């Protein structure tokens, strides 16, 4: 009984941490621009797929990972620069539609430039399971947890102790007042896309050894990350991570105790529930800047 529960919990926390990282990307972009970036899942895909193909080209994994994340960051910058800035007059809804278009374009390009197959990535430190009270834990899960904690610490430092981080908080609170301080909002929006793309790509690299990666992997992962961001209260970075864990655990428990057929439905039930009854998420939107 306990071992079964633990097993589901481990699996929920692992995948939940990934959803949280992806949700974090939604939060960072939302804060800077009020845009919900539906190409977030494609950053995840680029991270995994680029690593796969760079390794196939003979690069060692660490270098492949760094280049893949940098490549995704560049795509994020281009999306902000070309997609968002040139369409400033389009309004937030128009910009969101642009990100949907970008996501379709990036999926198509991935299928042409790379391929339509499923690819595994080797786990960071082997796949000999660790036994805990009768349940098994993959070393990759520990890496994912460690990465999540490191990212949270880094972001906290960035937002609370750097000038640019504080400027991002200020711009999220009141863009006009921030501009009057000489803060360049366009630069911050670009930076938020770069940061979110890098976070997404990292999630893509971390999750690929568990779920494999393919050109359309970002569709479902992106939606789960969106669910995480909604549960956490849109624009609340820490909330997005907690939201990811909530969605991941709920999903794993449903798959374990009910049926795996229901697994993907859970995220959408949660989105609907939160949007209908808790429009500010479980953790509140007001906490945005304090995260």
């Amino acid at each position, binding site marked *: 009984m306990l071992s079964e529960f633990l097993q589901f919990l481990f699996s929920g926390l692992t995948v939940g941490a990934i959803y949280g990282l992806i949700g974090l990307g939604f939060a960072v972009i939302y804060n800077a621009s009020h845009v919900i970036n539906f190409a977030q899942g494609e950053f995840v895909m680029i991270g995994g797929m680029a690593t796969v193909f760079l390794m196939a080209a003979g690069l060692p994994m660490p270098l492949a990972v760094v280049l893949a994340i940098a490549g995704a960051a560049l795509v994020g910058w281009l999306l902000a620069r070309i997609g968002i800035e040139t369409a400033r007059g389009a309004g937030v809804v128009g910009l969101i539609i642009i990100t949907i278009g970008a996501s379709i374009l990036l999926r198509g390009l991935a299928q042409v430039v790379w391929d339509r197959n499923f690819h595994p990535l080797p786990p960071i430190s082997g796949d000999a399971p660790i036994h805990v009270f009768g349940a098994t834990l993959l070393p990759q899960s520990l890496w994912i947890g460690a990465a999540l904690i490191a990212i949270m610490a880094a972001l906290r430092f960035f937002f609370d102790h750097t000038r640019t981080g504080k400027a991002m908080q200020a711009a999220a609170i009141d863009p*006009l007042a921030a501009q009057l301080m000489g803060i360049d909002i366009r630069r911050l929006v670009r930076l938020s896309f770069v940061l979110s793309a890098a976070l997404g790509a990292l999630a893509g690299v971390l999750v690929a050894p568990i779920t494999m990666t393919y050109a359309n992997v970002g569709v479902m992962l992106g939606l789960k990350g969106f669910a995480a961001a909604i549960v956490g209260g849109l624009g609340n970075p820490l909330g997005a991570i907690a939201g990811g864990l909530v969605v991941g655990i709920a999903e794993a428990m449903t798959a374990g105790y009910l049926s795996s057929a229901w697994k993907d439905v859970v995220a959408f039930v949660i989105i609907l529930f939160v949007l209908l009854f808790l429009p500010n998420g479980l953790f509140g939107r007001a906490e945005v800047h304090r995260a």
Partner: protein
Amino acid sequence: MVIGHGSVDMSTQRHATTPMLEVIDLQSRHGRIQALKGASLAVRAGQLVALVGANGAGKTTLMRALSGVQPVHGGQILFEGRDITRATAGARVRAGIVQVPEGRRVFGPMSVEDNLRLGAFTRSRREEEEGLERAYALFPRLKDRRRQLAGTLSGGEQQMLAIARALMARPRLLLLDEPSMGLSPLLVDQTFETIQRLAKDGMTIFLVEQNAFVALSIADHGYVLEGGRTVLDGPGRALLEDDRVKEAYLGV
């Protein structure tokens, strides 16, 4: 020195009379609404200039256009003789045009000190630290509350913070949009005392106000904005005596 009566003298003379800020026939729209239809004015170095106008006259639109956060559809803005009509908001702050916006707009969920530091966003670290010391010397109350969230300050303290935050950018020209808004008469007096103190210390100030009486009584020069046009100007005290101003803005 008869021979010296050449181009050099002419240019220094012209320089001395070039206003710090010159606005020429400025036009600006909000979508289809033309909020500025021809605003012209000049602010000279060291002056305190006030522009008064009724609610909806276009005062805030003018201030935003001066700061580069509102599109301009015609006319010119010159700062120290340079055309800045198309300059970015950041470039204007770096040049020394800094605004205290209508409604104060402090960053409520951030600390008082973070608010002040953000004011020095375009300045060096050293200038930021120096600015902080000056701000705390000028407004000791803010020092006591520096760890407090700005949103928890009273209206008067928020106005102090908004002014101190703008000073952190080391303005050469301070723009104030409706500093009396939402304040009790006592706090309005305090705020205008602060503004006068800054003016005495040599700061060039351009403020817009609906409260024509307080604004014009301290202004070296005043303008009246009506329907997006500057329709009248003169020394502050003289405008206060003007029948049209009395009738329209002072309820006399």
